[in-house]
């Protein structure tokens, strides 16, 4: 191919030579008369006018403009098909000082990427989108695009686009304009010099809005694709003016730039030294202290009941207390639909050695806060284990001679204390009488950590004390 260079009035926003191309580095890869070439020039000019070349990050799509990074001497990121708005959103939020442009074709934006553009627009991302609508899939060789006109013969609509089979041309500017997020949406055309001039103004405004921090701007550019349309450059421009423009009417569809409040400058993040406090943690420097436990402890506890009976919380207090006592612990809740069906259960292990499995399939202790839970888990209890049941007596068919059974109406006892919901903690008090290795002080500190209000802390302390009293062997 002839090695000629287009020198006349080339924008400094374009590379002097397109070194990322493998050949013909003096010219673009676009077909003669292609709208992408014009759109590129308009964009380059706007970037230059606004003096934002260093700050600009161009996100290029998949489509004929996939190689926009060959030409633009700006930061460049190439995105997957249709995803440029998601990529651009994150780039802008990561680097609020940058000027981020999502450049997309109609297949890219209006078909495969329709979710990404809709939501970027709806979030009002402070980015600029150039949407080059040539009503066809150019790169893949002329298949129907969402914007293809009715009756148009493409390679995948060989009989012409038919609304019954293929739906209607998608009007992107109109569709996005019903959203509250965007500040500026205009449709322009590249049908003649006058239209191109207007397109240049729109592109510039859309960029300027971002520079001012006003929010989401999109310019839909009706653009000729002479190659696929099988028209010469002149006819293709005419089709833009007369064919495309009659279905996709040029004009401003949304302009909130006057009301839009510029986004505040992002505040710098907190000092790194402040991060642990923000996360609510203390960094542990040096060797971690191995748990020091007074005695050999290996508690395997299963707790079960209705949702709302404090099953999970009871387990959590036990685990916190165990940890406070220098023991290793684990707490594993049932989760998901089971919780929603109204029952819940959890596994708690408290051990003077590192806990291996957090699952308690053969509990040494079962705390059953209701009858269904007792029925469900009684058979799993280890021989010699302990079962506490929230009821006056254990139903006859649930008795097991080889386990220690303790039935007390814990909820009723809590009710007498003025708070039936503290039944779980009364049960905890009872349990503490029966197990070893967890000092009272640890339980109290655990409660203070888990319980969020002073009122409940007082109730729970009373509940523990009461639980201890009711736990004399029957």
């Amino acid at each position, binding site marked *: 191919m002839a090695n000629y260079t287009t020198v006349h009035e080339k924008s400094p926003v374009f590379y002097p030579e397109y070194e990322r191309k*493998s050949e013909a580095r003096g010219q673009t890869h676009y077909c003669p008369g292609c709208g992408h070439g014009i759109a590129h020039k308009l964009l380059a000019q706007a970037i230059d006018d606004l003096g934002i070349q*260093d700050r*600009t*990050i161009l996100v290029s799509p998949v489509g004929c403009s*996939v*190689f926009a990074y060959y030409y633009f001497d700006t*930061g*460049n*990121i*190439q*995105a*997957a098909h249709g*995803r440029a708005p*998601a*990529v*651009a*959103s*994150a*780039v802008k*939020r*990561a*680097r609020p*000082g*940058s000027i981020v442009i999502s450049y997309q074709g109609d297949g890219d934006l209006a078909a495969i990427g329709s*979710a*990404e553009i*809709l*939501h970027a627009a709806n979030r009002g991302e402070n980015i600029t989108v150039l949407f080059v609508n040539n009503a066809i899939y150019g790169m893949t060789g002329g298949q129907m695009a969402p914007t293809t006109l009715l009756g148009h013969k493409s390679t995948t609509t060989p009989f012409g686009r038919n609304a019954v089979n293929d739906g209607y041309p998608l009007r992107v500017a109109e569709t996005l304009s019903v959203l509250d997020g965007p500040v500026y949406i205009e449709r322009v055309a590249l049908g003649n010099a006058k239209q191109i001039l207007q397109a240049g103004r729109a592109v510039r405004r859309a960029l300027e809005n971002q520079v001012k921090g006003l929010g989401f701007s999109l310019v839909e550019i009706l653009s000729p694709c002479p190659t696929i349309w099988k028209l010469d450059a002149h006819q293709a421009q005419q089709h833009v003016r007369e064919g495309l423009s009659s279905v996709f009417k040029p004009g401003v569809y949304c302009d909130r730039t006057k009301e839009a409040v510029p986004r505040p400058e992002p505040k*710098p*993040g*907190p000092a*790194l030294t402040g*991060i*642990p406090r*923000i*996360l609510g943690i*203390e*960094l*542990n*420097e040096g060797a*971690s202290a191995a748990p020091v436990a007074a005695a050999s402890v290996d508690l395997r506890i299963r707790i079960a009941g209705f949702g709302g009976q404090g099953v999970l919380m009871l387990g*959590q207090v036990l*685990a*916190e207390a165990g*940890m406070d006592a220098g023991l*290793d*612990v*684990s*707490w*594993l*809740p049932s*989760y*998901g*639909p089971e919780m929603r069906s109204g029952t819940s259960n959890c596994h708690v292990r408290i051990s003077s050695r590192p806990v*291996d*499995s*957090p*699952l308690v*399939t*053969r509990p040494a202790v079962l705390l059953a806060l209701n009858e269904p839970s007792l029925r469900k888990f009684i058979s799993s209890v280890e021989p010699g284990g302990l079962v506490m049941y929230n009821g006056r007596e254990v139903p006859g068919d649930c008795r097991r001679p080889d386990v220690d059974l303790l039935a007390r109406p814990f909820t009723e006892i809590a009710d007498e204390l003025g708070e039936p919901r503290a039944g779980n903690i009364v049960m905890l008090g009872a349990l503490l009488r029966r197990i070893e290795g967890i000092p009272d002080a640890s339980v109290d500190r655990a409660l203070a950590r888990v319980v969020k209000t002073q009122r409940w802390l007082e109730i729970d302390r009373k509940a523990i004390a009461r639980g201890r009293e009711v736990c004399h062997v029957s």
Partner: protein
Amino acid sequence: MAKQLMKGNEAIVKGAILAGCRGFYGYPITPANEIAEAAAYFMPLSGGVFLQAESEVAAINMVYGASSAGIRAMTASSGPGISLMSEGLSYLAGAELPCVVVDISRGGPGLGNIAPEQSDYFQVVKGGGHGCYRGLVLAPASAQEMADLTRLAFDLADHYRNPVIVLADGITGQMMEPVEFKGEPALPPAPEWSVTGTAETRGNLVSSICLEPDDLERHVRKLEAKYKRAEAAEVRFENWRADDAEIVLVGYGIVGRILKSVVEQLRGFGMNIGLIRPITLYPFPAAELHRLAYHARQFLVVEMSTGQMIEDVRLALNGLAPVEFFGRCGGNVPAAEEIAAVVRRLQAGSHPEHRLETELDEVALHG
């Protein structure tokens, strides 16, 4: 208050922020929700970005954008969402972008259920997306490891310029255990290849395109070399009493924990049994398994699936020792007792003459 009782899912977010992660992009899915919820709270407070995406497709592409812009970025999901992220993972690997993706796996296929399963192994460890790429995969088994391995994941991702996946399951995500955090909070500067919207980075390009076959082959070979380096340098596993074991159990994540209690139970009965718990699933601890095969008579792989990791165990052993499998799925978690019974049956039917005496000598010779 050095140790705190914390859910695994929460430990991930705290570990991530300590590692300098300042971007989280997520889409709700059980059982990974606590991760996004904690990120929604802690990211803004830490000067980072939390963004709820419109889909996992968008989420992973936001990660792509954030990573291109030079910040440490992550997302978290579960199987159905990871399926949607496969496209993005391929692009991230192709463009050599670091990122961390957490998969709190659940039951599949399809919508399956939200109970724990380990059936995402093939998807996560073997790729999922198109092209010759690998994701480095870490498999935590405790809340502490959720924090530690997430932090490590960011360092590995940056070092190898590649996605790192933390593969856990509903149990490890939901359970609370004591967690302690070590190491000063980090906030690495933007890598020099990143596109940050400055004069210095203006010449930078993030792309996965290599148009010419020779260029693409060079690129793919470069990725391959990188994975080879990771295979040599990053293998991690826990060897629990396996050195002298006749029966070696192999399981990762929560199953590894259950297997540990099986080992303890059966050792109590005098059985010579041990455990290998792979911590990195890619690179896989193949050499360690191979080494143990000279001693062990039998390997038993246990997974919460119908058998996925077992393929890597078989490849590692390459016929050196018999490999049996026990799995539960659908959200059922194998009980220690159940596995112990399987081991006993295996032992009863075993043939001691299967021991690889010759190879054993060879090992001795090599010191």
